[in-house]
Structures are given as C-alpha cells and as structure tokens.
C-alpha cells in the first residue's frame, strides 16, 4: 500500500499536507506525532473511512495493488474488507461475541453453512488470543467483556474477514497497562501475517511494537524509517525534539 502526495482537507482546512509513504506488508508501521498532527486523519484515508465525514476531501493517490483506491468505480465495501480497521475506543456490536465475529464473514459470504462460520469464528478468536477466555460464552454480549477483551474482540472481528492490512488507531489508549500489554503481544503475533499500521501517542509503544515509524507534525510527515533509527538517530531536528519530550 502506498500513498503519493496525499493531502486531506476538512472543508478549507488542510489537515494532511502532501504525505507520501510506502507501507510495507511484512512489518508493523507506527505513526507517531503530537496531538492534532493528523495521524488519525491519514490512517482513515487508507481505507476511506473518512468518506463518512462529509467535509473531508482527499487529494493525491493511494494505491493498493497498484490501483488508486480513490478512483471512481472503486468498491469501498470491498476495500474495507481488505483493509480492516480497529478503533481507539473498543466498539464491539451490542450482539453476542459469536455474532460480532461472524458479521463480517456473513456479509461478505465467506462461509458456506454454519460449520464453516464456526470455524472462522474460532480461528479469528484464537488468533486474537481471546479464544480461551470466551469459548464457553460465545453467546454472551460482546459489550459484557472487559475493555481489553473488547479491543481484542474488535481485532478478531477485523481478522475474521481476512484482510490484507489492519489499521489501528490508538488501540490501547482506552486500556489499562495489563490489557495494553496483551494487545501489544497480539500485534507482535499478527506481525508478518497482516500488514499492520498503528497510530500511537506513546513513543514507548511505537518503539516496542513497530519495525517502521513515521513521524507526523502539523499535517506533514516529517520523517519515516526504521523504528530503531528514528528513536536513536533521527535525521530531523523536529523528530529529535519530539522524542526527547521538548513538545507535545
């Protein structure tokens, strides 16, 4: 997945300014930067979730398999099935755990019959490291889980439709340290199977989970590279200032 000179506007306001980036499929990529710098905005352009914001407008190209996802005729539904998303606040559907996972496969017709569906649900929950915790209560409501479990449920839900890319927007910011650790573990495990992009405001987290890091500031991507380089040896002064806590 790659972006070429992407700018995003909210009405007249430019929130993202000509960002170009190549997102590798085999790594975890972290977006960091001070609040309001446009990390979430950019993330949402990657699966066109910003279509839901009436004032948002995108310029430039974002390519998946070499074709622009903003071309006319692009099927957004299919795009989103290929580029999944996990949000800051866990948002399970107020349905059973089973239904939460099964929803995506059902609407995309990925399973024929109940058995296949059961298998998908189990596999997804296993991958999300939630199976052991919930296997006896698949019919309980997804909202009855703890925050960390809910977030893993959301990840499992995203996995269930077998996407190519998973976008995560500060997936741990609503969680306590223990739940956060679990999610970080999970990301490490999923790494390699899916391309993962994670937005985080914690540099420590970025350092822990990602192989590549992009640093955003005031709508621009200031620097992008290996995580280890960015944290130990940034090229840009602004990056340096940010990671040493001069601002933000």
């Amino acid at each position, binding site marked *: 997945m790659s972006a070429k000179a992407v700018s995003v506007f909210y009405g007249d306001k430019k929130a993202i300014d000509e960002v170009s980036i190549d997102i590798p499929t085999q790594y975890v990529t972290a977006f960091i930067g001070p609040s309001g710098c446009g990390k979430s905005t950019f993330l949402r352009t990657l*699966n066109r*979730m910003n279509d*839901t914001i*009436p004032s948002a407008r995108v310029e430039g190209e974002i390519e998946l398999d070499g074709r622009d996802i903003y071309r006319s005729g692009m099927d957004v*539904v*299919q*795009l*989103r*099935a290929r580029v*999944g*998303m*996990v*949000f800051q*606040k866990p*948002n*399970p*559907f*107020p349905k059973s755990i089973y239904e939460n996972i099964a*929803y*995506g496969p059902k*609407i*995309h017709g990925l399973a024929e019959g109940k058995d296949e569906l059961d298998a998908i649900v189990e596999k997804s929950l296993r991958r999300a490291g939630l199976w052991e915790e919930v296997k006896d209560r698949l019919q309980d409501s997804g909202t009855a889980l703890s925050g960390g479990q809910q977030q893993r449920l*959301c990840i499992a*839900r*995203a996995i*269930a*439709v077998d996407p190519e890319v998973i976008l995560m927007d500060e997936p741990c910011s609503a969680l306590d340290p223990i739940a956060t650790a679990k999610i970080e573990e999970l990301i490490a495990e999923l790494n390699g199977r899916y391309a993962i992009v994670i937005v985080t405001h914690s540099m420590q987290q970025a350092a822990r989970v990602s192989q590549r890091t992009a640093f955003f500031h005031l709508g621009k991507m200031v620097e992008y590279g290996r995580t280890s380089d960015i944290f130990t040896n940034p090229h840009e002064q602004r990056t340096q200032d940010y990671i040493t806590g001069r601002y933000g």
Partner: protein
Amino acid sequence: MTERLDPTRQAAFEARLKKRYAAERRFKAFGLGAILFSVAVLLFLLGTMTLNGIGGFQRVELEVPIDFTQAGIAADPATMDQPGAIQTLEAQGLRDVVQYFAQENLGEEAASQLGGQAWRDVADEIIGNPSVLQTQASFWLPASASLASGYQGEGSPEMRALAAQLSERGQIAKRFDAGFLTRSDATNPQQVGIWGALKGSILTMLITLALAFPIGVLAALYLEEYAPKNRWTDVIELSINNLAAVPSIIFGLLGLAVFLTLFPNLRSAPIIGGMTLALMTMPVIVIAGRNAIKAVPPSIRDGALAVGASPVQVVFHHVLPLALPGILTGTIIGMARALGETAPLLMIGMRAFVATPPDGFTSPATVLPMQIFLWSDEIDRGFVERTSAAIIVLLLFLLVMNGLAIYLRNKFEKTW
C-alpha cells in the same frame, strides 16, 4: 495577611442568610406545590371519571317473567339462525307478549316504562336459544331512561315513586350491563354500547399504524443516515417539524379537502380516518425515530463500515435494531395521541350516528373519543354515566399504551 474584612463571617451576613434560606424554602414549596397540583388534577380527573363512570357499566333493569308456554309463539328453531328471524318473532307478536307479561307482573304504569326496544333483547335471547320458547323464563330488561333516572333519585317525582315501589318488590335493579361492551351507539342511554366505537378505533388505528410507522421510520432513517446536507433536506426537515406542530384540526381540513374529494364514498370510513391520523402521527414518529437513531453511537457504524458493510447494511443490521426500542416508544406515544384525537375526525364525517359496528375499513364508523364527544352532547341524563364509562375505557387503553412506552423506554434506556 493584610486588612481582611471577612465579610462572610459578619453577623449581617448570617442574618441575611436566614432570609435567603426562607426564600429557598418558599421556592421549593412552590415547586412542590406545582407538581402536587398537576398530580392532584390528574387524580381528580381520573377519580371523577371513575366515580361517574362505574355506574355507566350498569343499567337499570326490570324483571319480567314470561311464560312462553302460554304465549303461543311457535317459532321453528331451525329458522332461528336465518337472517329474518327477528321479523318472524315480531310478526308472531313477541312485542305484545313481552308487553303483556310486563303488565301482568309489574303493573300498567311500570310496563309502559319498559324500554321500547326491550322485546328485542328477549328476541335475541330466543334466537340464541330457541328452547326457551318451551319454558317459563325470567328476563331482566332495560327500563326506560326516565324510570332509570327515577331509580337513581333524579327525574320526575312520579318516576321516583314508581321506582321506589318496584324496588320494594325487587323487580327493579341496577345490574352490570355486559352489553355495554358489545353493543353500539343508540339513542337511548339504556341501549348504548361502545363496541362499535371501539372497533372503529381499532380499525382506524390499524390503518394509521400501517401507514405512519413504515413511512415514519423510513423517513427518519433517510434523514438521519443518508440525506445529504442541502436545501432539499432542510425543506423536508422543516416541513416535518412543522407538521408535528400543526393543529390537529388542520389535518381534518386536509382530509376533508383532499381525501374526501378523491374518495367521496368513503366519508366516515376508518380508512379515511386512519389516513388522516397517519399524516398527523407520521411526523411524531419521524422525530422520535431520528432521536433514537441519533442516540446510536457512531462507533457502531464505524465498526460495521470498517469490516466492509455497505451503508444500507450498516443501517438495517445495526442502527435500526438498536434504535428500534426508541422508535417504538415514539410510535406508541404517537399512536396514543392519534387514538385520543377527535378534532380532525369531526371534519371527515366520523361523527355520524352508526348503530352497528363497522365490518371493514370502508364501512362507516365512529371512534371512541368521538363517541365520548357525541354522548357528552346528548340531552338525556343517562348519558352522563355512559360517557364517563366510555372515557374509562379510552383512558384504560391510553394508560396501557403510555405505560408500555414508559416501560420500553426505561428498559432500553441505554448509555453506550
């Protein structure tokens, strides 16, 4: 610390504080008074209606024993389920038979106070069970309206005296009138019933529900979920908000000028009433629906969109089911309002006198609140109790509906 005054610890402050607390108490008392007043009015209203109305479920009846073995009415039981049965009985002089036995047993004066249609009750009984023609049977038949009011201590002195005389002999009594719930409108308060109006109300409400609910919900979905923000949407929104506040009688004028012009034959029919009320109820449902839809957190939509659901799927799989309790609450409240509505129906002929319950959406009918209105206009004192009884029935329906709405709302009140 420099020259502090500490004004808040002076005696004047404390004195003033006392007054402020007194004002506080007065204000609070006034507030409580306002609430208690409203509740008291509600209780008083319900109380008077109940007190007045309990009697409306009863009627004053006279006991008439009839010895059919002497009456010489020979009706063939087989013909008794045919349409003309009642005419047959009339032709055989059932009317006079009843009158005769009434005179025999009650005396001339009392017999003349047997309601003019009393023999029909006997006829109905015979039709239901022809074998009584071989027996002696005793019937409780409705007294005339004036004797009834005499029995209740009103009306003319002669009637009061007569009633007293009869009640001494145990031949007159105020008895529960089950027929009140199964008969229809009549001119004589002793003969009236509310089934016709109730059935009319039910038919009308069915039409209203069938039109207003789907249209209201779909419009709410459109406006809340899909409508682009443009002039057109503003116009739609404005007209819905406005319709919700247009006086109901205006809808009656609309029904009169539009529906009755298009379908002149359907004057007084539940289908027209239902259509008129549906237009009135629809905006209520739209507004309630929009609020319920708005209350569904956007994160649910995001979640569904992010796994690749289309906007239509998001709405029908997630938003609508979650908003449904709220929509239903709004619908029930709107329907309750429509059920109690009278003014627009006045305009479209639903105030006609209809002596039989409607047998379909297109046959003439009246509705419960209209029946109340019509009875309240009657001269006869006997209608006062009947009106209140009809009000009790209407209020029971409304209480159930409102209770259901409140229950639904409390049960599904969600904070996501």
